[in-house]
Each structure stands twice: as structure tokens, then as C-alpha cells.
């Protein structure tokens, strides 16, 4: 029998990008830019005999969160693995640039929400995709410099891999679930290059243990760990006050923190080793306990480890 809480709470992981947007924003407040009826699609997929999508897997627009305007972009992880490509990238960059330009005007937004769900660059249009990632990073930083927080919400089927992980790391905040994964190199790519003994991509427990939300939250790679339902994402997106400063002091502190992290845990082979070295109780059990128990344990470690 399906537990009550699952039956009544839609899962972020199972939802489409459009359903996620509807669940995060105030009901009925979303206005899409370059919607499907505009038919702004990839010109490249036909060459590979692949069906396009009317929105190229990237939905961008404006809406309200508690009555305050926000800009929002959502990747559809089920279409081509939620890839960064020429058209989808341009839509995202355009949204971010508009958000940065809006600062201080009557059109300003209180935050940009990035609902990332991506395996990285779309290989069929890889050069354009790589350019899109770097343009996105630059645009995210411009938004932050304009004083507008950029919040990454990660809990989809594709996770945030490749360029998606780099974009996430440039955001003001990263909100994650257990299933949301962040890693520059995906499990299959590691296995292909280094062999299954290095990383077995079919071992889901290993993939989640290493790249999943629990590992990232404990190591300071994510600011917030939440349950995987849509309502928890909305609650996390609402909490957008006091974003970390985007200045040289923050960057220097982050560099020091990352150097220390590498020094302390760089020789570890799996996350329970790291958790044991962090003196967390029952390190082997951390991937097994339920979300409520994990959130309690995370709080006991001193709470929010700022990803920045």
C-alpha cells in the first residue's frame, strides 16, 4: 500500500518541468516567455532523425512567489536528458540577462529560480551547448552581482551533471533532495573512462551515496536538504532572504574551505569514509535512514553548511 504522504504529495522527481513550475509558484501566476506555440525549436535534431520539442526542453518565464515577482527557468529532464543546447541555452541566458537588467526597475524580480534537471551538454549540438553553459554561468553571476539571488532547485531524474553542476555551483543557494545528484562527470562517463572498478554506474546506491543530496549537503556542496515532494521545494524557494554576499571575501573564504576539504578527505574512496572522518555517528547508516531522520542528523552537525 502506498503511504498517505506519498499518495497525496506529488513527487518532484516524478513531475514534469511544467508541473514543477506550477507547484513552486503561486497558483496560476506563471507567464511563459517563448512558449511552445512560438515553436522556437532546435534546428539540429532533424539531422540526427530525432524528434524536437516545442520548448526545446527549457521553459522560461515570470511568476509570483508569495506575491513577489520571480523569474523561473525549468529544464525538462525527460527530453534528451535535460540538455544544454543552442536554443534551450539561449532561452536561459536571455531570461538571466533580462533579470539582471531588471534590477532597480519596476520590472525587477526578487529571485531567479533555476529548476535544473540535466545530464549536461546535448551531444548533438555540443559546441553550442558548451557555449551556452559558459554564457549561463556569466549571466548567473551578473544576476547575483545585481543583488538578485539565484536559487538552484535540484531533485530531478537527470540530476545536475556536467555543465549543470557548474551552473548550480555558481548560484546563491542550492536546494537538493536525496535523488537530486550533482557531479561534474556523470557515473557512466567515469565508468567508461576508468572502468567499473573505479565507479560502477549501475550501482544506484553508490551513485546516490556519492553524488546525491545527502553527500552534497554534509560536505557543503548544497545549502539545503529537503524531502522530495513539490511542496518542500516551494517552501525552500520561499526562503530567499539574506543570500550569501557575492564578493571577493566570500570567494576567498570558499577557496580556503575547498582546500581544507580536499586536504581532509581527498584520499577517501567512498562517502561513509568521509562521514566517519567527520565523526558523524553511524556513518554506514546515513544513506539508509529516512529523510526526517537525516534532516535531524544534518541539523546536529551544526546545520547549514553554506555551499558558498
Amino acid at each position, binding site marked *: 500500500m502506498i503511504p498517505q504522504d506519498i499518495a497525496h504529495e506529488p513527487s518532484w522527481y516524478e513531475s*514534469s518541468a*511544467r508541473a514543477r513550475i506550477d507547484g513552486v509558484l503561486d497558483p496560476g501566476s506563471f507567464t511563459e516567455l517563448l*512558449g*511552445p*506555440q512560438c515553436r522556437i525549436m532546435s534546428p539540429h535534431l*532533424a539531422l540526427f*532523425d*530525432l*524528434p*524536437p*520539442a*516545442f*520548448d526545446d*526542453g527549457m521553459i522560461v518565464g515570470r511568476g509570483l512567489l508569495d506575491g513577489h515577482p520571480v523569474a523561473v527557468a525549468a529544464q*525538462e529532464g*525527460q*527530453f*534528451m536528458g535535460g540538455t544544454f543546447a543552442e536554443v534551450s541555452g539561449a532561452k536561459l541566458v536571455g531570461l538571466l540577462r533580462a533579470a539582471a537588467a531588471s534590477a532597480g526597475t519596476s520590472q525587477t524580480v526578487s529571485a531567479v529560480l533555476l529548476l535544473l534537471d540535466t545530464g549536461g551538454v546535448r551531444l548533438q549540438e555540443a559546441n553550442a551547448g558548451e557555449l551556452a553553459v559558459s554564457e549561463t554561468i556569466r549571466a548567473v553571476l551578473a544576476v547575483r552581482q545585481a543583488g538578485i539571488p539565484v536559487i538552484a532547485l535540484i531533485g530531478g531524474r537527470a540530476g545536475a551533471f556536467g555543465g549543470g553542476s557548474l551552473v548550480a555551483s555558481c548560484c546563491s543557494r542550492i536546494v537538493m533532495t536525496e535523488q537530486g545528484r550533482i557531479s561534474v562527470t556523470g557515473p557512466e562517463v567515469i565508468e567508461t573512462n576508468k572502468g567499473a572498478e573505479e565507479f560502477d554506474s549501475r550501482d544506484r546506491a553508490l551513485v546516490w551515496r556519492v553524488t546525491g543530496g545527502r553527500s552534497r549537503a554534509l560536505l557543503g556542496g548544497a545549502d539545503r536538504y529537503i524531502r522530495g515532494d513539490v511542496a518542500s521545494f516551494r517552501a525552500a524557494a520561499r526562503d530567499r532572504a539574506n543570500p550569501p554576499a557575492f564578493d571577493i571575501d566570500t570567494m576567498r573564504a570558499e577557496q580556503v574551505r575547498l582546500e581544507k576539504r580536499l586536504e581532509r578527505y581527498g584520499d577517501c574512496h567512498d562517502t561513509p569514509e568521509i562521514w566517519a572522518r567527520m565523526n558523524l555517528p553511524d556513518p554506514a547508516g546515513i544513506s539508509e535512514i529516512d529523510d526526517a531522520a537525516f534532516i535531524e542528523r544534518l541539523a546536529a552537525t551544526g546545520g547549514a553548511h553554506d555551499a558558498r
Partner: protein
Amino acid sequence: METFTIRAQAPRPLPGTRAQAIVGVVASGNLEILLERTGETDAVEITVETASHGYRTVWEAVIADFVARSSPGGIRLSIHDNGARPDTVMLRLMQGTNVLEKQP
């Protein structure tokens, strides 16, 4: 890719005021359908772009059934299909007209 357009006459125009809707996702075994009102009364136009070649007769049968059941008069449907089964196609088509009819 195989692309073709199927035209039909519906018994009645589709009720409701919503101008357009999109349902589904171009994922494996799935499809997306963009529905738009054309301003006509009974004409239905369905453009299919599919990754699976050679199933036009199956599409025609599913669409004939759909037009008879949902009567989507005055609607243009544009489909991107990634190998959805006929039952999935039927459900998506009916989901699409339902959204256009019932949602503001």
C-alpha cells in the same frame, strides 16, 4: 523522422475558451501534443512528427477514434512523438482536449 498531416471533420466544435495547451513530454515511449484553436468550427488538423516509421495507418485509426470520441472541432494538434504506443497516444490526445475544454 516521418511527418504527415491528417485532416478530419469533427461532429461539433470543442467547447471552452482556452486558446492553446501543451501536454506530454518528448521522452522515450511518450509524446508531446500542442493544441491550438484555429477559429474554425468543425475542421481538425493533426500534424504528426514521429521517430517511428511506417505506422501511419495506426495513427489514422487512433485519430479517427479520438475525433469521434472527443469531437475536437476547430483545433489544430501538432505532435512530436518518440515511439509512444497507441494507447498512450489516445490518452494524451484526450488529456489535451480535456485541458482546452475545462481549464481557463
